[in-house]
């Protein structure tokens, strides 16, 4: 399958900080999760792919278009839907107006067709009933859905979502997962998140980033498999574990190299993620 997005040797420095370091990437249709600790370079990678900032070195293409030229960049943008980490809204606009405004900026110029498309995406994110309501009167979850609708308008082939479920309550998060899963049908979605359960539930593929590089690229099952036989329970925190924490039952769950005879537990995607990071800090206090 031809990749929608193909990146090679992407690097970006902020002063002496290597935000991206020789990133190699091939994204195909479906939802790809992007995991990594804070400062791993996830948002920077998304911003580069979304053409918000140019890379220092390396190249990438989106649907065959190279954003290093002005015309290529325009073409990439024509096929792009971008939901930034903290999307802004024009509070005085209605949900319809805001998405309509974004649609115009995506060069959807036929008024009737554009309005039909705006109504479609607002229906898709479940805001059809409140499309005439001003954004200042919408809840946080609804606003986030407005932002998703804005990213979806125009049916982009490549959707970049930067931590879209942050700050949402569990019910809203579940609803958002449904939306993202639907969005991933037939298009390429790159989903940056701190929520391993989002990845487990949604993604066909997962990337783990740390220190500006991609540390893992595979399926969620493969990431989980990284931890197979490396998770165990104990009554005390095992000092040899790379990470360990007390669970709700009072026992300790340890991740690392188990001692002989350890009470092995079933590995999860989060365990695999922690092992990929290999002690690079994931907030796993005892």
């Amino acid at each position, binding site marked *: 399958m031809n990749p929608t997005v193909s990146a090679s040797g992407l690097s970006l420095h902020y002063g002496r900080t290597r935000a991206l370091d020789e990133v190699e990437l091939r994204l195909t249709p479906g939802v790809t999760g992007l995991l990594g600790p804070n400062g791993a370079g996830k948002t920077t990678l998304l911003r580069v792919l979304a053409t*918000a900032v140019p890379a220092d070195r390396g190249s990438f293409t989106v649907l065959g278009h190279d954003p290093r030229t002005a*015309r290529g960049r325009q073409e990439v943008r*024509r096929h792009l839907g971008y939901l*930034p980490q903290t999307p*802004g809204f024009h*509070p005085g606009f209605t949900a319809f107006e805001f998405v309509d*405004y974004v649609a115009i*900026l995506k*060069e959807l110029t036929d008024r009737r067709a554009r309005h039909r498309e705006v109504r479609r995406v607002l229906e898709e994110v479940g805001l059809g009933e409140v499309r005439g309501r001003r954004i200042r009167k919408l809840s946080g979850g609804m606003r986030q859905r407005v932002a998703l609708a804005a990213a979806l308008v125009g049916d982009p082939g490549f959707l970049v979502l930067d931590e879209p479920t942050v700050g949402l309550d569990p019910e809203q998060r579940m609803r958002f997962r449904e939306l993202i899963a639907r969005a991933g049908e037939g298009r390429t979605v790159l989903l940056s998140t701190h929520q391993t359960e989002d990845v487990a539930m949604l993604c066909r593929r997962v990337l783990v980033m740390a220190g500006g590089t991609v540390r893992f690229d595979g399926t969620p099952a493969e990431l989980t498999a990284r931890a197979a036989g490396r998770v165990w329970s104990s009554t005390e925190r095992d000092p040899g574990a790379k990470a360990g924490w007390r669970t709700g039952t009072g026992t300790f769950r340890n991740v690392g190299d188990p001692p002989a005879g350890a009470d092995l537990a079933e590995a999860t995607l989060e365990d695999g993620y922690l092992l990929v990071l290999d002690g690079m800090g994931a907030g796993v206090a005892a």
Partner: protein
Amino acid sequence: MSAVLSPAPPAADRAAAAGGARAVLALARFEARKLLSSAPVVLAFVVYIGWIGWRTRQSFAGYPALQDADRSTQAGPLLVGMAVLLSANLAVLRSRRHGTEDQFAVLVVPRGRRTAAHVLALLPVVLLTAGCVTGQFTWEALKPGAIGHGSPAELLAGPLTVLLFGAVGVLLARLLPVPSAAPLLSVCFLFVFVLGAFSFQGEGTRWLAPVVSEASTTPLPSDLIGRPAAWHALYLAGAALCVAFLAVLVSGARGLTVKAGVALTLALAVTGAVAQAGGDSPALTAARERATVTPEKEQTCVERAGSRYCAFPEWVPRTAQWATVVDRVRSLTGPAAHDRQLLVRQRIDARYGPAADSAIPPATRRDQVTVGTAWGGNRVPEFSTAVAAVLVAGSEAASDTMCDGRMVTVMWLSLSWQDDPVDALRRVRLDDSVSGAAIVLSPTDPLTMTEGQTDVVRRLLQRPLAGVAAKVRAHWAELTSPKVTTARVAELLGVAGPGKADSCA
């Protein structure tokens, strides 16, 4: 022979450019809707339209000279312009204020084109202003007493000011992207352009202001006004478009078209600014001199009921109104004055331009009455007084020094036939009083009424017209003889005399 052909742009480029242009128009339409519904603009239009209605109902006392009425449309749009400046500025800053810059930066329409859309979004509000200006002017033109010709260039000044202010709002947002900048600039504009805190001195600089209204109580013939209205419109249009192109340029659109647009519109603005600062031409100065000193060479005369009315061509239709006044006054006089053939000549002092308000010396020629270029309101009793004074004293110069009982006859002739004579008495006096001594206005030098004359006139005006008129006709010779006292006039006309003797000192 060979020819070098530049390659045609690829079809994809042309399609992209067309799509981009359509997107700019779509965005402009969206922004225009937002601009027109923004609170400052709505409020400004409500006030502006209300002001037009309130002002135009009574402006020019119902007798507008359209060459002045066109200028009177220019002040109102300043308010709309300031509202547009504020709203356009906030619209451009909207993305920054609400944190959508990042989202929008990766969309297809780039920042420069978004700025272009903000500029284009000004056009509907400019057209609406033009509609208001046209409505106001048409209202004036449709008044039955309207005369003269308006200038399209003068009418353009208001809408172009709105365009200029709006473009300044857009540019300001790109240069200084803080929400407080536009309100501060609006306050500065308010003080400079509306309240006149900074006076633009000299012919060169005063025309740099968007509106140079030059209000005058004495309308001049169109061809003597000498305002560089067309150059000023060019200056405003050039400045507005230059600011608009600059806003697009500083937004990142550095294409040849934009740079050429800046250069061309700057050239237009400079051309207009230089040309409008040229001052009055020698031909205009000579024409003004002729119209002031020898108006008879410029005027058209018509005969009406034995009198001759000479007016500058634009005022000829108004001679009928003057004739009505002359006829009414003359109908009340004694037989000796009934057949007097008056020459009513329009006189102006045009030498100092449209803003000057110079006094006109009384005519020395017997039976000549001066009439000004303004009409309606107080101008009617003032002219009526001048007619009566000439019929009684013989000439304007002679009536100027009149300090005797004839003043009573003059004022009664002037006022008694009017709808509300006592109110007309109040209006024709400088201090708006109906008692005591006062100066009485006329088209040339003012006359004076003593306290005693005022009392007698007031008493006469409260009497039935026919009864007094009969006595005036009967005693005309004595009433109009020099040195007749006010007491004697009162006695002849059958009212109580003044408490004390005449004193004009």
